[in-house]
C-alpha cells in the first residue's frame, strides 16, 4: 500500500479546512518515500546520509534516529521527497556508505508506519466539547488541559495525523510537534 493511496483514503477531501485541491494534487504527485537505514552508531553517519540526499536536490521530510537493540548500531527512518527517477540510485549511494549496513525503500510494501504528534489548540469552555469529540474520534489522549487550551497526543499513520490537523483547523492551532514516522516490516520480513 503506497502512501499515495494512504493520502487519498484518509485525508478529508477537499474542504476548505486544511488543503485546497491544488495542494492535494501536488502531494499526490510528490510521493514521500520511506526508507529504513541500518547504520553503525558513529559520529558523522547522519551527515554523510544527509549530504547524499541534498547533493542531488532531495529534501528530507522526516527523520527518526534511535539506537538499535545492539547498541553498536542505529536505526533511521527517513521520509524523503523528490523525483522518483534518481531516488533508486541515491538509495544505492547511501547503501554504499561505509557506515551503512543497509538502506531499504519501504514505500511500496506493507510495512507498519507510525508517527506521534502533539498539538496544542486554543479553546476555552466554548468549543471544548467539540474539540474533545474530534480528539476522541482520532483516539487522541488529552495530555494537558487549561482554561484556554488543550494539548492532544495522537499516534498513528502519518495520514491520520494529517487528517486530525485538518479537523482541528477550525480552532486556533498554537503549536504542533510531530516526531516523524517510524516504520517496521511485518512478519518475517526484516526492516
Amino acid at each position, binding site marked *: 500500500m503506497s502512501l499515495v493511496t494512504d493520502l487519498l483514503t484518509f485525508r478529508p477531501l477537499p474542504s476548505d479546512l486544511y488543503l485546497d485541491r491544488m495542494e492535494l494534487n501536488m502531494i499526490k504527485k510528490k510521493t514521500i518515500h520511506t526508507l529504513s537505514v541500518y547504520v553503525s552508531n558513529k559520529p558523522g553517519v547522519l551527515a554523510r546520509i544527509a*549530504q547524499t540526499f541534498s547533493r542531488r536536490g532531495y529534501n528530507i521530510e522526516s527523520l527518526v534516529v534511535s539506537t538499535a537493540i545492539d547498541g553498536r548500531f542505529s536505526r533511521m527512518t527517513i521520509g524523503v521527497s523528490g523525483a522518483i527517477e534518481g531516488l533508486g540510485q541515491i538509495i544505492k549511494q547511501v547503501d*554504499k556508505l561505509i557506515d551503512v549496513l543497509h538502506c531499504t525503500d519501504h514505500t511500496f510494501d506493507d510495512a507498519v508506519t507510525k508517527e506521534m504528534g502533539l498539538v496544542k489548540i486554543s479553546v476555552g469552555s466554548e468549543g471544548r466539547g467539540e474539540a474533545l469529540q474530534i480528539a476522541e474520534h482520532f483516539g487522541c489522549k488529552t495530555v494537558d488541559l487549561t482554561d484556554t487550551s488543550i494539548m492532544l497526543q495522537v499516534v498513528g499513520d502519518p495520514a491520520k495525523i494529517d487528517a486530525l490537523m485538518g479537523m482541528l483547523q477550525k480552532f486556533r492551532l498554537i503549536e504542533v510537534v510531530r516526531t516523524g514516522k517510524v516504520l517496521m516490516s511485518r512478519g518475517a520480513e526484516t526492516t
Partner: protein
Amino acid sequence: MADKITIDGGQAIIKCLEAQGVEYIFGYSGGSVIPIFDAMITTPSNIKFVLVRHEQGATHMADGYARATGKPAVVLVTSGPGATNVITGIMTAHMDSVPMICLTGQSVSWMIGKDAFQEADIFDISMPVVKHSYLLKSSNEIPRTIREAFHIATTGRPGPVLIDIPKDMSAGPMTADLNAEMDIPGYKTHEDDQINQEHILAIAEALATSQKPLFLIGHGVMISGAQDALRALVEKIQVPVTTTLLGKGAFPETHELSLGWLGMHGSAYANKAICDCDLLVNIGSRFDDRILGDPAQFCKQATIVHIDIDPSEIGKMIQPDIYCIGDALKVINALDPHVGALNTEDWLKKLDGWKQRYPLKFKRQGGLKMQHVIDEFYKLSEGEAIVVTDVGQHQMWAGQFYKTDKINRFLSSGGAGTMGFGLPAAIGAQFGCPDDLVICFSGDGGFQMTLFELATAALYKLPIKIVILNNHYLGMVRQWQELFYDDRKSGVDLEGNPDFVKLAESYGIKGFNLRRPGDVKRIVKAALDYNEGPCLINCEVEKTDNVFPMVPAGKPIEDMLIDAPKEGSKKLEKPTGST
C-alpha cells in the same frame, strides 16, 4: 612476562603504516603533527618521507604514486590550512577512484570546535570527496583505524580515506594491540560477490547474436588487473575495443582491434563505432559525461551492457539493458567460457575504413605544434614512458599521440580535470617507478599552479622530463571561446609567464628552449639523454591551435566535429553540456 613497551600515538602511527607496507609519506609539517614527525625519527622504519612545497603537491604525488604502482601512498599534513590545502588533491583522487591515505593533524581534542589556532573542521569539510573518513577519539583507536583505512582505500572501488588526528592522540600513550581487528560491518566491497550467472548468460547471448559488438573499457579493468584476461577474450571473440581516457592502456592501443579512446576529444573512429554498434559492453567505466555527449541520445541504437563493481553506477547515467555487478576480472573469467569467436569481419572492415579515413593527424607545416612534440617523445621513447599530463589541450593531444600499450602508463586527472596535477603526479610516479622513464606534459597554465614542486624534483634528482607545451594561453577555454563565443577571448591570455628555462635553472634544473619544428627531434633526444636529474623543455608552440575531433558538450556524439569548421561555415551553437 615481558614489560609492556609504551609507545605514543605518533609512534603507533608509523608502526601501523609500516605494517601496511607504506613506502612513501608525502607531506608538510606543522604544529599539530609534530608528534608524528618526531615519531618518524624515533621509530625506525623503512618509510621514506618527502617534504613537498605545498600540501596540494603532496596529494598529487601520492595520487601519481598510486596510479603508477597500484599501491596507496600516505599524505601527512598539519591542521587548519594544511588540511584544507589537500581538498583539491583528495577530490581529484576520489573522482578517479585512486587509493590514498590522508593523515591530517588536528587541534588538541578539548579545543576542537572552539576556533583554536589552525583549527579546521576537515572531517566535515572533506566529507563529500572521500570514500571514508575518521576523526580519532582516542590514541588506542589508531591501529584499528589505520588498518580499516587501508582496507577501505584499496578494496572494491578504491578511493581516498582521511584520518583527522587531534594532537593529544598522536602525543598521548597508546596501549592497544597494534594488530587490532577491523570493525566495519557496513563495508561492502563487492569484490567477492558471486557473479550472477543469469546476467553472464544474458551477456553471452547478446554477444552471440550481435553483428556489431563493441567493448568500452574503463579504468576499472586496470584496477582489477583484468587486462590480460580482457585481451585474451577480445582476441578470441574478435570484438573491437575502445577505452576511456583513464582506461588508456587497459587494452594495447597499438593492437589492431583497438580504436583508441572515445569521447569529447577521442578518435573519430571510436566515436563513430559508438554511433554504429549494435551492442556496447562497458566494463569498468562509469559512463562519464565526457564520453556521453547527450546522455539521452547516447548509443540508443544498441543494446547496452554495464559491468561495474559499484552498484550505484548502474543506471546513474545510462540505463543498461543488461548489467552485472562484480570485479572486472571475475566477470570476464565468468563470461569467457560462454562465448566463442564472433563473426565480426564485416564490422571490423568497416571500422578499418574509418581508421583510414579519419586518422588522428596534425599539419607539420607552419609553427611548432604540441602534437609534433608529443609525437616525437612517443617515437624516441618507443612508447615505453609513463606519461603524466596536466589538464587542457595538451592533455587531449598527449592522449591522442602518445599511444599506451600497458596499464598504469598514462596518468591524467580525468574526472576532476585538476590543473596543477601534472608535475607533482609525475614526481609521485617517478618515486614509485624509479627505473621507468617519466614524461610530464603540462601546459603553461597548469604548470604554474604547482611549479613550486620543481624544488622537490630537483632535491631528489628525479629524472623527469618536464615538457611545458607553452602557447601563452589557457588554450582549451580559448578554443571554446573561438568556436562558440565569436572568438571573444576572456580571461585566457597568460600574459606575464616567466622565462621557464631560467626558472628551472634557478632550481638547479636543466632547461631547454624549443621554438622551431626543425629542432624537435634534436632537443627531444637531448632531453631524453639527459640523466642528471629533472630537465624542463619549454616548447613555444602555436598560440591558437585547436583540438579535434570534438564533440561539443551536451551534443549527441553524431554531431562530432572531425576537423575545424570551414571558414564561413554556420556558427556553432553554445554547448549545453557541462563545461
